[in-house]
């Protein structure tokens, strides 16, 4: 049987060779052929017969086949069924739902979009660019929310659990995106879909149920008002299936708190940018998925071998110590392990960013958690490497009972040091409330810290706060306010709008205290200490974001020799910062769209090995530079989306405190990031003009349609 592979080219050439073009034509032609159904049913053994039948045709597909067969350019080492799975990894279908019209349909995955933008958020960005514009109300029926799982999700490659939700954000009014780990993404694909796109809004609460290629809308009135984990359990009970995976909102999303999250039955969270709010605006309470199909793999034998190689690569004696130590540290103490180290390096966000050092950091660090409230560890399916889940229990004291997922680093900082709070139990309690009511812990903590400083300065009074003395370090007040935000009651009605809006109602002094970029509250990596993060925050497509590009990893020693980053980046040096930031953003755009967890990527599994896994899973041969190229395209696609929403270079900045007020102690004392010159260098490296991707850059990236759209005269 003839076998076809997709030959990759280096990152410098996006055009296809004649052979690649012929392979592509064959795939497209076979897909369009009425023989498709027969192949899906009958499988691989009929491929040859089909080609024989087609050989008598004058169709361009057949001519391409003949050239391939005659030239011997097919690749016998890569075998896949081009009809059922034009690519492995993808299942090939997107579920479209219009909640207002109560209509559903299954459409084919657009292969060209998938080739260019990989999947996940990359694919969603291209789709949403066409669906949404500056006038789209993020909370209106015209907003489209897309749930996607990239091609590596569900394949079994270590660490491929990340799925994503994208929409126009109601918090920032620009690109909204949030990822979570766990089983939901893989189950969605097993249920027959790479993604679900939801438009319109329902007149009453509904949930979507997807099961082995079928989908239905179900009444969710009975779940409305329930907390997230209770909702998930109730849905599993109603469907009589504890293995159904559920992603849902809590009261916060229902009541349109602007940074409402989406939480799964495994308590994994799509936290940032208010994706739960968009669901709430559509009266969409939950999505339940259950599937029994496997995720197709193009070359199963090679893929299995690479997966095994990847697992061995991260452990001694194969792994360098910076890899194995990172892995073992995360397993032992979770992400909160780094609270103390970052504090001692002068980079722990403290007291609404007035300080980088918190003397009581030891009380809220990962090893303290391990000795006190930690009851267990866990890992995502198909991780097999890190096991960073923390399971905590608070059994005594004023915050009991608490039982569930423990706080991550970001939460320990945002609800801890940022608020001068050293009570780990209160942080665990607040984290638990955030997860159950469905709000983002970073935005919540950042907004409370802002409110604390406003209270200190008399901008907010006790009366404004409903009598709550929101003073620095008052852990009881923090827990109370978190609950009010999650329920959008009392002062939570205001604070639930996010720090940018709240500050705008209070005047210029408050606006100087509000730490956000483009409306998204700044996460817990101090940009005055790590200059790469100053540029990353200023330019990230979500707003201040530590995940879409985490170039500080290169300053921490999570080096990537496969991309030329063989040594740690020195701190406080302008040179290399812009290029390193650009690299990490493109890199992150690629691997997140594929479905990889960042803890297994970037100084852990070498990316050239990841590329081998991608190639054997999908059948598309591409090396790590080729994936980086796709990531660059995805980055520019999201930027184009934001430009369409009205973003300009003026918004590529930092909040006043981080831009103008240096820290007073630690290595960053009396230093500020040279952000303006970093930005100019960054734009030049990216081929952008005044913050906008140039026409030439877009053409170079094979984005002619976007070039035409952005630069139409």
């Amino acid at each position, binding site marked *: 049987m003839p076998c076809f592979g997709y030959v990759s080219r280096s990152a410098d050439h996006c055009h296809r060779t004649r052979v690649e073009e012929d392979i592509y034509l064959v795939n497209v032609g076979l897909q369009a052929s009425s023989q498709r159904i027969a192949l899906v049913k009958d499988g691989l053994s009929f491929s040859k017969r089909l080609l024989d039948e087609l050989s008598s045709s004058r169709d361009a597909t057949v001519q391409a086949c003949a050239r391939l067969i005659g030239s011997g350019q097919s690749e016998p080492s890569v075998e896949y069924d081009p009809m059922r799975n034009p690519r492995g990894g993808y299942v090939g279908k997107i579920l479209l739902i219009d909640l207002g019209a109560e209509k559903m349909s299954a459409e084919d995955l657009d292969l060209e979009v998938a080739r260019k933008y990989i999947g996940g958020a990359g694919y969603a960005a291209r789709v949403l660019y066409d669906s949404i514009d500056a006038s789209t109300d993020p909370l209106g029926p015209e907003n489209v929310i897309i749930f996607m799982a990239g091609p590596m999700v569900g394949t079994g490659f270590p660490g491929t659990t990340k799925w994503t939700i994208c929409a126009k954000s109601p918090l920032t009014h620009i690109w909204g995106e949030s990822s979570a780990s766990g089983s939901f993404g893989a189950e969605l694909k097993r249920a027959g879909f790479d993604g679900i796109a939801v438009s319109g809004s329902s007149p009453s609460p509904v949930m979507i149920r997807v099961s082995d290629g079928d989908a239905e809308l179900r009444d969710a009135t009975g779940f409305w008002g329930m907390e997230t984990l209770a909702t998930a359990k109730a849905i599993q009970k109603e469907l009589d299936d504890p293995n159904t995976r559920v992603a849902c909102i809590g009261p916060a999303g229902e009541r349109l708190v602007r940074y409402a999250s989406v939480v799964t039955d495994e308590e994994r969270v799509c936290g940032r940018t208010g994706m739960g709010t968009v669901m709430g605006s559509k009266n969409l309470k939950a999505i339940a998925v259950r599937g029994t199909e496997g995720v197709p793999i193009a070359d199963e034998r090679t893929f299995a071998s690479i997966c095994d190689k990847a697992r061995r690569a991260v452990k*001694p*004696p194969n792994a360098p*110590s910076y890899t194995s130590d990172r892995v073992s540290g*995360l397993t032992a103490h979770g992400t909160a392990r780094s609270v*103390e*180290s970052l504090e001692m390096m002068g980079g722990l966000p403290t007291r609404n960013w007035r300080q980088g050092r918190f003397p009581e950091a030891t009380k809220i660090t990962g090893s303290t958690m391990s000795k006190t409230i930690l009851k267990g560890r866990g890992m995502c399916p198909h991780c097999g490497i890190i096991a960073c889940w923390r399971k905590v229990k608070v059994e005594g004291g004023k915050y009991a009972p608490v039982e569930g997922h423990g706080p991550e680093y970001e939460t320990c900082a945002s609800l801890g040091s940022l608020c001068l709070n050293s009570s780990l139990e209160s942080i665990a309690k607040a984290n638990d409330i955030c997860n159950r009511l469905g709000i983002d812990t970073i935005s919540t903590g950042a907004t409370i810290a802002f409110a604390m400083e406003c209270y200190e300065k008399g901008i907010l009074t006790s009366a404004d706060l409903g009598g709550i003395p929101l003073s620095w370090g008052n852990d009881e007040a923090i827990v109370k306010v978190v609950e009010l935000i999650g329920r959008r009651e009392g002062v939570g009605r205001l604070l639930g709008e996010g720090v940018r809006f709240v500050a705008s109602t209070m005047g210029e002094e408050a606006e100087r205290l509000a730490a956000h970029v483009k409306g998204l509250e700044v996460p817990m990596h101090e940009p005055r200490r790590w200059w790469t993060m100053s540029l990353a925050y200023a330019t990230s497509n979500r707003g201040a974001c530590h995940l879409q590009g985490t170039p500080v990893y290169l300053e921490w020693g999570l080096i990537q020799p496969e991309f030329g980053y063989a*040594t740690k980046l020195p701190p406080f040096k302008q040179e290399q910062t812009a290029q390193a930031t650009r690299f990490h953003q493109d890199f992150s755009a690629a691997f997140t769209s594929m479905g990889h967890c960042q803890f297994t990527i970037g100084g852990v599994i070498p990316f050239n090995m990841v590329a081998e896994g991608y190639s054997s899973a999908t059948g598309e041969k591409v090396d790590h530079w080729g994936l980086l190229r796709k990531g660059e395209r995805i980055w520019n696609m999201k930027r184009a989306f934001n430009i369409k929403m009205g973003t300009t270079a003026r918004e590529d900045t930092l909040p006043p405190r981080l831009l103008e007020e240096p820290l007073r102690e*630690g290595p960053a004392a009396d230093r500020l990031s040279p952000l303006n010159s970093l930005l100019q260098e960054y734009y030049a490296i990216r081929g952008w003009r005044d913050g906008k991707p140039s026409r030439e850059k877009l053409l170079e990236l094979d984005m002619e349609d976007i070039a035409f759209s952005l630069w139409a005269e």
Partner: protein
Amino acid sequence: MAKIRVALAEEIREIVGQKELEMEIENATVFDLVESMAKKYGERFRSAVFDESGKRLRMIVTKNNQEIEFLQGLDTPLKDGDKVMLLPPIAGG
């Protein structure tokens, strides 16, 4: 003899039993300091700080807030009053 202030984090702090301490050493480099601490605090300290080769450090080590990779590495000289930090690698976010 030079008096060096040492600050420790996480598991290395727990092995030593203190967050901060003072070590007295003579004509020392960073390597000498860490080696003398390994002799004092035993194999747990040694394996937490050095990798399998016994010559490279697993930890982030700073002298007066500068990481030693950007100074003279393990040969970075120490003098009276210097402050050295030993921190586990940073991970997560």
